[in-house]
């Protein structure tokens, strides 16, 4: 503990406290500008100067960063201290006349107007450096800093350009005492002045509109609270007290005997077909865009509108975008035809527009589908057979002007046609998820060439994989529509349950085995096993195969240079005998 006097008042504080803290503890107010409790003291504004007497020597020191010492006699309002403080405030008033804290302070100190030259009457920045320090010490981004010297000094990101380093936490604005740094919500992100983009989005938000569960989360990277422990505004305004800062991401380990993979698909990116102009023409939209558009909770409240807000009079739907096309995916995505028909119906119903379907073949298999197709025919939807070559806005005739022109060879009429429409919907196909191969590795299963997961047998075991106990459901295995998916999922569930019920499963009897009396432990086989079923027993000097892991491919057997490894039912001797047998006949 340390004893000192501040303005004649005896005070005791623990070691290491600053004069400012000591004073504050005893309700002695020392004005500050560049000081903030959560930041390193900077001692730049020199407003908190106090006169300190120690060992017969007195000096002006900044209270914010001077540690209290035994026997200090501090005067916060001595003539000398006030003189310096006034002078500094007056000078700051000249620098930043528009800064409220300064105006307030000036009043307190009885300064009506500054005697010094005012550069810019609207200037607010007092160069206290709180923003810079916050960005460095709290956010850890160091996205802004001081540049230039002397009176030219100012705060900016590197080279005065939008900074990569900035994470958009707006901590700088939060710490700015004079409101010199401002930001506003613009195009979904915080923008600091017009030229400085402060990061992507708000710290607290709902991931997406249709999120399940529909709850907001805190982006701890952007949340000031997680930098400073301050703020907590969200908690203050939430009367349900639902905000929990201690919630943590956690990895939950679940022990399971069987696993069903239903990792879904990825929609084909229509930008990959430049000729269709997706991303170039605002009124060329993808199937998902359209779903969003007609969604009652969507941006237009479910009304089908063009980019300019008007209603379309003619809409083209292009089938097989990215499907049945050797340039992209050779397979048929299986769902597009039907959802395209659905779209046609909706457009008809909601916008009363003409609808053109451009198809290769219509694949309306399944219950009620064909009937639906006929219904659309009755509704007057137009079907044109042929692959669309390109979509442009280059009008050749009067009535094409301001329209999107779809160029297509009508294979039924055997002629090239130009169809002007207001909106084009691209029936984008289904693609395997981006991480299919990764997942395949994790679960020891395979992918077919199109990287959809490979079933154990196309006919006999469509839901099983080559890892026993791992089953497939839905579009991770092949493109399929909802009813099929539900059906397959049910099947997969049933298989899984059956297995779980049995509690055990039979191994393929064709596993490989290593005869320890013959194995020399050369370890050629160890690295070959794709299922890491082979281990080299160092101490015993030979390798062993784990029956439960071995799938019986026999690669190791073929490679075993000393013939110590053999595959049950596929022993060398057996196959040799087969070969001999072949030539008997």
């Amino acid at each position, binding site marked *: 503990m340390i004893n000192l006097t501040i303005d004649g008042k005896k005070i005791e504080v623990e070691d290491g406290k600053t004069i400012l803290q000591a004073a504050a503890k005893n309700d002695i107010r020392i004005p500050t500008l560049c000081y903030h409790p959560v930041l390193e003291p900077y001692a730049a504004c020199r407003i908190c100067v106090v006169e300190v007497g120690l060992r017969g020597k007195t000096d002006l020191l900044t209270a914010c960063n001077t540690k209290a010492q035994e026997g200090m006699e501090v005067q916060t309002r001595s003539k000398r201290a006030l003189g310096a403080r006034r002078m500094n405030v007056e000078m700051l008033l000249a620098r930043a006349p528009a800064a409220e804290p300064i105006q307030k302070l000036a009043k307190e100190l009885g300064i009506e107007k500054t005697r010094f030259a005012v550069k810019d009457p609207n200037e607010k920045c007092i160069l206290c450096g709180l923003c810079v320090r916050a960005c460095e010490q709290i956010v850890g981004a160091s996205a802004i800093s001081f540049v230039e010297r002397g009176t030219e000094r100012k705060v900016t990101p590197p080279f005065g350009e939008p900074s990569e380093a900035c994470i958009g936490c707006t901590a700088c604005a939060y710490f700015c005492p004079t409101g010199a740094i401002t930001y506003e919500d613009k195009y979904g992100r915080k923008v600091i002045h017009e030229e400085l983009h402060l990061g992507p989005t708000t710290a607290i938000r709902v991931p997406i509109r249709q999120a399940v569960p529909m709850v907001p989360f805190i982006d701890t990277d952007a949340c000031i609270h997680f930098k400073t422990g301050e703020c907590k505004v969200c908690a203050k305004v939430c009367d349900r007290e639902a905000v929990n800062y201690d919630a943590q991401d956690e990895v939950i380990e679940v022990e399971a005997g069987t696993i069903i993979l239903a990792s879904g698909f990825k929609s084909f990116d229509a930008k990959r077909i430049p000729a269709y102009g997706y991303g170039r023409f605002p009124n060329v939209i993808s199937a998902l865009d359209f779903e969003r558009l007609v969604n009652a909770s969507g941006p237009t409240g479910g009304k089908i509108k063009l980019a300019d807000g008007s209603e379309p009079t003619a809409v083209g739907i292009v089938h097989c975008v990215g499907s049945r096309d050797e340039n992209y995916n050779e397979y048929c995505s299986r769902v597009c035809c039907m959802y395209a028909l659905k779209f046609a119906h909706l457009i008809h119903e909601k916008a009363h527009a003409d609808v053109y379907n451009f198809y290769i073949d219509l694949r309306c298999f399944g219950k009620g589908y064909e009937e639906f197709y006929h219904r659309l025919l009755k509704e007057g939807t137009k079907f044109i057979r042929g692959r669309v070559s390109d979509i442009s806005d280059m009008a050749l005739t009067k009535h094409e002007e301001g329209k999107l022109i779809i160029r297509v060879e009508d294979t039924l009429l055997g002629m090239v046609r130009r169809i002007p429409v207001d909106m084009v919907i691209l029936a984008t196909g289904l693609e395997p998820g981006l991480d299919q191969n990764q997942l395949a590795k994790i679960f020891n299963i395979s992918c077919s060439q199109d990287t959809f997961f490979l079933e154990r047998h196309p006919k006999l075991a469509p839901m099983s994989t*080559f890892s026993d106990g791992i089953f497939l459901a839905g579009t991770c295995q092949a493109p399929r529509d909802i009813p099929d998916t539900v059906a397959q999922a049910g099947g997969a569930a049933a298989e899984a349950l059956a297995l779980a019920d049995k509690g055990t499963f039979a191994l393929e009897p064709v596993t490989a085995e290593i005869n320890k009396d013959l194995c020399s432990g050369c370890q050629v086989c160890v690295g070959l096993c794709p299922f890491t079923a082979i281990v080299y027993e160092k101490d015993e000097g030979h390798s062993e195969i784990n029956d439960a892991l071995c799938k*019986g491919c*026999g690669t190791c057997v*073929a490679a075993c240079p000393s013939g110590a490894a053999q595959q049950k039912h*596929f022993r060398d001797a057996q196959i*040799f005998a087969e070969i001999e047998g072949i030539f008997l006949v």
Partner: protein
Amino acid sequence: MSNATFEPRLVGFLCNWCSYTGADLAGTARMTYAPNVRIIRVMCSGRVDPQFVLKAFKEGADGVLISGCHLGDCHYKEGNYKALRRYKLLSKMLEQFGIEKERFRLEWVSAAEGIKFQQVCNEFTEQVRKMGPLNLSPNGGQHE
């Protein structure tokens, strides 16, 4: 024996999951193809031991076919890659034994490729037919 009347004797080692199923498909699809290929089923093309190939030739095969899943499709992930490596080294060595590359063939045939299997069998048969019989030293190295 003139090549026209010569019926090559070919041995095919087919993997259980792709090629054998492919052959099965070719069958169930009623595709006719050259009967010269005698099929031996193994679980994976990776199981095919070069000894089998030599044995086949020794026993009198005029050509040997190994067939497995397409690369990347192997039901055991990488068995067919091992088959490929062995094939490349083995066919190089076979040439040193005077057995032409054309008599030893590796093909990827998926479960869905019945047609491809048909083509492979036909092509291979014709190819070997043109080359005529292998005629390894009659006693196969045994002393007369």
